[in-house]
């Protein structure tokens, strides 16, 4: 089970790099959706006796992260008629490099973390830290609003992954609450992105500079 889980997480980490290196927004949405599905499967491998609630949680996660959010984002993207992130603040090569450095550091750092005994060998903590880092990278270096939303999703995926270590602490109700909050957040952000596009004929956040301190 543990090997299968590690394999899954390695694929999820590879998806991080795909999200950083690709400029076609449609492809990045698919990548994030794939990561959502992979994370959705994780609880099945991590805890052998999940029970009905666990199964429901797996289903809800996959449905929201893997289907509903991506479909909605693709819809928002079509409405906005935008295909590429053409001029990020940091180019795709450099962001890949930064992502790799971050992932390396996450791996090194987690080996020094005081983890509980049975979790020292798992990839969960480094994978989670690396996803959070990638999410931040996308949030800060991409100009298209929709790419920033995808960055937020990666960040949230990382946090979700860490939460999987804590089955008793994060009960069903809270997990579903968190998922719903994320979904609604993306939904509202998607609507805002649509309005930004209508208002400025672009979803680049570089137009959002009216509000600042006057000199």
């Amino acid at each position, binding site marked *: 089970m543990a090997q299968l889980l590690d394999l899954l997480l390695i694929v999820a980490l590879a998806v991080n790099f795909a999200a950083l290196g690709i400029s076609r927004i449609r492809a990045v949405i698919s990548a994030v959706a794939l990561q959502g599905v992979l994370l959705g499967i994780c609880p099945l491998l991590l805890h052998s006796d999940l029970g009905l609630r666990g199964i429901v949680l797996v289903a809800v996660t996959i449905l929201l992260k893997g289907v509903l959010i991506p479909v909605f984002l693709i819809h928002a993207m079509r409405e906005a008629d935008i295909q590429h992130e053409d001029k990020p603040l940091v180019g795709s090569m450099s962001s890949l490099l930064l992502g790799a450095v971050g992932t390396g550091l996450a791996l090194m750092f987690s080996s020094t973390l*005081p983890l509980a005994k049975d979790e020292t060998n798992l990839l969960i903590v480094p994978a989670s830290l690396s996803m*959070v880092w990638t999410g931040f990278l996308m949030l800060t270096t991409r100009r298209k609003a929709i790419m920033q939303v995808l960055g937020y999703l990666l960040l949230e995926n990382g*946090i979700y992954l860490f939460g999987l270590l804590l089955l008793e602490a994060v009960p069903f109700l*809270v997990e579903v609450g968190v998922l719903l*909050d994320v979904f609604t957040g993306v939904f509202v952000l998607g609507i805002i992105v649509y309005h930004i596009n209508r208002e*400025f004929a672009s979803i680049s956040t570089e137009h*959002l500079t009216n*509000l600042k301190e006057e000199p």
Partner: protein
Amino acid sequence: MIYLLVLFPLGMAAAIYLVPSNRWRPWLIPAGGCGHLGLVWTAIYSSAAGPPLSGLEGWLILDALGKVVLGYLSVLFFICSLYAPSYLALRSDRPNRVFCANLFGSLAMMTLVSISHHLGLMWVAMEATTLVSAPSIYFNHNPRSLEATYKYLLIGSVGIALALFGSFFLAYSAHKAGLESTLLFDQLVKDAPRLSPPWLHAAFVLLLVGYGTKMGLAPMHSWKPDAYGEAPGIVGTILAGGVTSCAFLALLRVYQICRAGSEAEFAQQALVGMGLFSMAIAAIFMVRQRDFKRMLAYSSVEHMGILVLGIGIGSLGVYGALLHMINNGLTKGVLFLSAGNIHRAYGSKSTDVVRGALTRVPWSGALFLAGFLAITGAPPFGPFISEFTIATAAMNTGQYVAGGLYLLLLGIVFLGIGATVLAVVQGTPPEQEQPRSYRDSVGTVAPILLFMALVLLMGVYIPPPLESLLRDAAAFLEQSGKP
């Protein structure tokens, strides 16, 4: 009973959403505000003696601290709800269905935050307040409010995602120590001395940054001037008085766990440092600020700084901070609503255009001026008492540097706000080609007068029941610190 506190505003939100008439819908708001106030009043007094109200197997408990926050939130919302119908009548050009429903949505979520004793549930409710208040900031549907909403949502969501990460770290610190990992507040406070210190440390940092973003502490405050500057005054009041106080409560819960654990000293220093830094940043941006609504946002940053500073100073400062949360919120009500009226009367919020508000809208102008005196800590208003209490606490506990800086920054802020406010209220109003139709009316002035009356009351006489609630809450916060 405890479920009703949350379900009633949710029900109101649904009912309001179903009312078809744009004209009559806003009148349900005061009814709902009044109903919630009644429920909260009953809840607080029915549990005055005896065990606290609880529900969901200890996930929901109305404790001493929750009573102060919930009672205050309900009063704040009630007065805002009185203002809503006249405001929305002036804005009859815009559909208000979502706006009205969201007001109650945020009330329900704020109530849930104040009674949550499960950090995960509290997080869900806190994030939900962000989501339901976002459409209200976009009420004006123009490019500027769009930009403000996008920034508010993205910065707020990312910040609060970090708070979730921190909550997980907190649970992990119990897991690491060989205890059952949990996010139940009471369990965590009890286990606090045994929690794994490095994880507790990291959790506190993440939670401080996360909930600090929602409170608008510097340097995570950048969404605040934009959101408060573009949102209608009534939304500004609910954000600056309500949502930020909920985030403050969330931070207090975390602080209480850290205080009971190994992180007491670090947490206190972090809060004092963060508080002073927020005050300093706010002071810098308030001097020569020409946009009077953005100025109010920086004032909010400043007062959030005062709140965490008071908690960090400890002893009497805790009582002072809780009192100041109430005083600040009520005074922000005066300022945001009167600023909204002045904005309406001139069609601008820049001191380049807005002059002579005392002549054009005498009531709003005078209340704006009085609100300025109150918020900067002039006697005999409420904030004077609470700001003075915090200063006394700093001096009594020998924290002279923090106390001195605090007083100095209060002075700078006074000068900064003063220049802007006086520019707004004094002078002769500019000639306008098309005179704007807004004039002060009972509906738009009376609620502000009510806020002002409460601010004055809090300055001269704190009602004994409130006083004892505040003492209980401060004692509740302080007790867990003792081993």
